[in-house]
């Protein structure tokens, strides 16, 4: 299990390939990647603030919970902070399990908790100014299924 919080970009392809190749006893690998969307071309950047003292701890707790609930062989979380341009990758998770159902469920669990329980706050910088992204009721509701 590995949790990485960094400002620098990460190499999604290299991380995904290294993760998938690390264990030969796990047949199912799921990855999720979140990308700064360039919707309608109005966004010039995304700025992500975080709580340095708490972030890694919160992510490790979420990842450890996923590993134990689904007997994962491995889990990876990479989350960036700072300023990102449209098209840049914000974060990724990866899960490895014997069976696909576990790998999928654990990846969705990680994402649901990262969305609402990890101390990151997104701000969208556009031509007309900047705005904090509001938390969605859907995202809070998504936690109830676990």
């Amino acid at each position, binding site marked *: 299990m590995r949790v990485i919080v960094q400002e620098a970009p990460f190499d999604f392809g290299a991380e995904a390939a290294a993760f998938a190749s690390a264990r030969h006893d796990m047949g199912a690998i799921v990855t999720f990647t*979140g990308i700064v969307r360039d919707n309608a071309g109005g966004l010039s950047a995304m700025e992500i*603030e975080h*709580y340095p*003292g*708490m972030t890694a*701890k*919160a992510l490790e707790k979420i990842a450890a919970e996923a590993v134990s609930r689904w007997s994962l062989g491995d889990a990876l979380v990479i*989350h960036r902070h700072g300023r990102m341009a449209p098209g840049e990758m*914000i*974060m990724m998770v990866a899960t490895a399990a014997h069976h696909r159902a576990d790998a999928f469920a654990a990846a969705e669990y990680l*994402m649901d908790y*990262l*969305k*609402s*329980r*990890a*101390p*990151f*706050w*997104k*701000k969208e910088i556009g031509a007309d100014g900047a705005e*904090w*992204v*509001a*938390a969605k009721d859907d995202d*809070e509701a998504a936690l109830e299924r676990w």
Partner: protein
Amino acid sequence: MDVLYFAWVRERIGIPRESVDSQAATVADLVAELSAREERYALAFSDISALRVALDQELSDFDAPLAGVREVAFFPPMTGG
């Protein structure tokens, strides 16, 4: 204790962190104390249902006692992922 502010809470209050000398028993008491200080605090804390709190870097709630706590952080609902 250290009090930290993030995202729009930080912007409204105008500082990212400060040292606060308080005898508040609970988080809610601390919020009341801060709100009484200045308009910018009252504004930031006007709707507590829009806020989250962490005590010593663990999510908590506004009823929680502050005894022994060294770091309190206030912020809006998180938007990671």
